[in-house]
Each structure stands twice: as structure tokens, then as C-alpha cells.
């Protein structure tokens, strides 16, 4: 008998083991829900599977009686727009700031302490300021994501730039590169896949800020809906929404990873060797 640490599951077993916790939690839920509903059929805390199906059908597959729109689609679209725009702006800023910060000593001396201090400001604490400055519109919500996520990405990218071996930068200079051409031909191409990695890592944080901003001031959006129906204890809507958000987060992470693998074969090849 081998030691436990040397035993490896077969592929089939690995898939089964991976699914097991999900399965267990569903079974556990169904039992708990049945038990509560047997005692009080009007219980709202753990709705039955049947009421989930009804809620999903009502939110996602029928038009709203009041506005004639599909609420679920509308919520998803507006949330994703905010998230996408926020993350896109953050990533662009990260490139524009992270590369000079990592490469140019003068920029680092001038801006590094500021960026370090700024990244310590809790973004939620300045949300009221954003609402005052940008009003209740889309701007404030996008700005919260940008303010929350950009410092993380900038510092990550700055770190990655400074990790480029000095040998490479010297070599590039002996090949006739100027500061600018070295940025364009050596640093930027090496930073792009790392930027996608940074986006993947900060996406979770971006979701937090998105949902927080929507919870406080919005007229549609996934976060808005969850906090709206909370007033009616509508667990049958909240739980599917949470599952959907989780799925979206997982999907984006997966797609970004696949995209990075496809676009930058040299990057992932190097990683596997490590």
C-alpha cells in the first residue's frame, strides 16, 4: 500500500470527486428545504426547487408586466457593461502607469509613494464622494470599479516590469534600442499576457465594487436586483442570481485564461517549464 500522499485518482475518479461537494450541497439543501416547508409551507428562507424554476421563468423568460422588458437580460447587460468598461479603463491605466513606474527611475521616485498611498484608500469609503461628483448615473459606478481595481493592477504590473531580468534590458540597449523602442518592442509585448493575468486576479474585486455600487444606487443591474428583492425575502430570486453571477465570474476567468494561452504561446510555454 502506497502512502496517501503518493496515491493519485484516475481521471474518472477525479471528475467524480470534483463534482461530489456540489452534489452534496444540493442534496443537503433539498432535504433542509423540504423539512422547513413541511413545517411551514409559507417559509421563504429555503424555497423549493419548484419555486426556483418559477422565479427563473418569471425573471428570465417572461417580459415584465410593468415595463415590458426582460428584467434578467436587462440586469445582466447593464451590469456587464459597467464591469467591462471599468475593467477596460483600469487595464489601460495600468499599462500607461505600470510600465513607466517599473522602468523609469525618475517616474518611480516621483509617483511610487503616491500610488502606494492611494491604493490604501478604501474605495467604499469614497463612494459617497463619487456619487456627489458624478451623480447617480453610470459614471459613479464605473468610477468605483476603476478606483478600486486600478491601484492593484498598476502595482502588479510595476512589479512584473521590474522583474524583467536586467540582462535583457542591457542587451536591448546594445542592440540599439532607445527607451521608447525598448518599451514598444521588449516591455509591452512581455507585459500584455501579464496584464491579462492581472485582470483575471482583480476580476473578483471588480465584482465586489460593482455589486456594492449597484446595491446603493441603480435602477437595474444584478446587484440592484438582489438588494431590491431582499425586501420581500425573495430567496427564490436571490439564489439563482448569485449562482448566475458566480457562473459569469467563472466564465470570464476561463475565457481570459484560454485567450492568454492562445495569444501568447511563448508565455504559457515558459510557465509550464517552471
Amino acid at each position, binding site marked *: 500500500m502506497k502512502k496517501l500522499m503518493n496515491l493519485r485518482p484516475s481521471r474518472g475518479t477525479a471528475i467524480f470527486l470534483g463534482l461530489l461537494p456540489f452534489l452534496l450541497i444540493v442534496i443537503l439543501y433539498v432535504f433542509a428545504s423540504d423539512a422547513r416547508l413541511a413545517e411551514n409551507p409559507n417559509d421563504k428562507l429555503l424555497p423549493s426547487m419548484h419555486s426556483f424554476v418559477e422565479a427563473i421563468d418569471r425573471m428570465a423568460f417572461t417580459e415584465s408586466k410593468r415595463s415590458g422588458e426582460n428584467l434578467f437580460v436587462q440586469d445582466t447587460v447593464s451590469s456587464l457593461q459597467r464591469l467591462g468598461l471599468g475593467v477596460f479603463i483600469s487595464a489601460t491605466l495600468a499599462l500607461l502607469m505600470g510600465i513607466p513606474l517599473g522602468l523609469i527611475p525618475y517616474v518611480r521616485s516621483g509617483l511610487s509613494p503616491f500610488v502606494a498611498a492611494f491604493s490604501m484608500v478604501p474605495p467604499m469609503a469614497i463612494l459617497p464622494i463619487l456619487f456627489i461628483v458624478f451623480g447617480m448615473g453610470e459614471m459613479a459606478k464605473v468610477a468605483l470599479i476603476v478606483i478600486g481595481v486600478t491601484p492593484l493592477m498598476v502595482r502588479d504590473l510595476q512589479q512584473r516590469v521590474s522583474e524583467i*531580468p536586467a*540582462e*535583457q534590458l*542591457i*542587451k*536591448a*540597449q*546594445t*542592440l*540599439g*534600442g*532607445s527607451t*521608447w*523602442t*525598448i518599451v*514598444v*518592442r*521588449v516591455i509591452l*509585448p*512581455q507585459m500584455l499576457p501579464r496584464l491579462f493575468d492581472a485582470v483575471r486576479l482583480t476580476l473578483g474585486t471588480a465584482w465586489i465594487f460593482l455589486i456594492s455600487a449597484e446595491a446603493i444606487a441603480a435602477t437595474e443591474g444584478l446587484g440592484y436586483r438582489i438588494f431590491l428583492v431582499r425586501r420581500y425575502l425573495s430567496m427564490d430570486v436571490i439564489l439563482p442570481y448569485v449562482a448566475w453571477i458566480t457562473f459569469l465570474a467563472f466564465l470570464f476567468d476561463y475565457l481570459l485564461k484560454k485567450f492568454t494561452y492562445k495569444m*501568447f*504561446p*511563448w*508565455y504559457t*510555454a*515558459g510557465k509550464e*517549464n517552471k
Partner: protein
Amino acid sequence: MSLISIKNLWKEYGENIVLEKLNLEIQEGEFCTLVGPSGCGKSTFLKMILGQETPTRGTFLFEGKPFPQEPSVERGIVFQRYSVFSHLNVLENVMLGIELEKSKFLGKLFGAARKEAQKTAMEMLEAVGLASSAYKYPTELSGGMQQRLSIAQSLVKKPKVLLLDEPFGALDPGISADMHTLILDLWKKNNLTVIMVTHDLHEGFYLGTRLLVFDKVRHDPQAPDRYGAKITYDIPVGDNRKSVYKEIDKSIKREENDNEA
């Protein structure tokens, strides 16, 4: 006029004296190998020629003019590791030197100019024996092939002096012998001036035209940083006397043992 002319050169880091009263003339076409115990300042010396470090005082001339104080195209370099660009394939790695020179804004060539650069780069790859791997990425290459690539990258710029910083130190003995043949061959064919740092005395003794040994002459056990290294041997290679080899070997080993003790 000498290519490199050094008179009474000192290098200090605060209290720590690395090199003292160095005098040296290097002519065009020479192949100098630098050996010495670790910490003797041979790498610092190479860095000064490269422009990565500046001397504390003394005369330090390149073609009769003061050395440029940052790395530039006159001086090519091959490090022990990390001197190829992982995001470019082998051919692009060699083309980069041509592109950076010709395209000042984008650092990239297109159309006919690109074709021309590809052709030059391909010829260079053939010279170092990498033509069949032109479309591989550096991570797919062995250590020896990466060093071949790094040499090709530098040579495409036709540098006035090629600096090699322990370039074969991380390679297997067999591969390193192949690399010796390659570098000697390239040196003869292209009229290069080469300065190579190595920790392998055997390599230094048999490669090139001139062997320079860096070592501390004076030694104060209470203050090991008080005295810097000097050039203790400056002999033309071809002087293959066993006795000289043993003598230098002994002096370097003694120094290293002292350092470890």
C-alpha cells in the same frame, strides 16, 4: 591607437576597493580572456567596459575617447543567462537588432525592409548553426542553443567589441567545447575583438590570444576589502607551458580557499 586604453584605473564602492591601479591596452582583433578567483572584480571590469558601471578614477578610453556611460551598439554582450527575448522567436530575436536601428519610432520593419532584415538574420543564424530552429521560441531551446542565439543577436550589430560574461558556465562540458569551436570560428571570420570573462582557467588558457589574470596582490586579513585586485598575469595564449598553467591555477585556488576560509 588601441581600441581600449586604460591607465591607472580604480574602482571602489565606498570603503571597498575592487580594482586598483589597472593599466591595460587592448588592440583591435584581440581575443582576451579574463580569469581570477570569485570576487576579484573581473565581472565589475567587464561591466565598466559595457557601460553598466563607471570607474571611480583613472583614464578609461574607447578608441581614444571616454567610454559611453551606458550600454550602446559599439559593445555587444552575451550574458550567462537571460539575454534572449522570450516573447520573440529565434529569427525575430536576431532581427530585433536590425529593426531597432532602422525604425526609430516603432522599432519594427515592414514590407521589403522586413524581408531584407529576415535575410540578414537568417544568414546570421546559419553562421551559428540555428537556421533549423528559426521559428522556435527560446523556451523550446536548450541552454547551448540559447547562447548561440544570444551570440547571433549581438553579431548582427557588428559590434566593435564583443563582451562575453561567463557565457558557457552553465553548459555541459561537451556543449561548451562545441561553443568554443563556434566562437573561435566566428572571431576569425568576422575580425572580432572579444573580451571574455570565465571562471574556468582551462577555458581561458586555451581560448583566444591573450590571458589576463585578475587577483589581489596585497592582502590584509583584518580588512579584506582594503586592497583591490590587479592584473597579475598578462600572457599571450599560445604560451602553453604547463608550468605557467599550474602556477596560475595555484594562485587562483589559494585565493579562493582564503575567501572561503
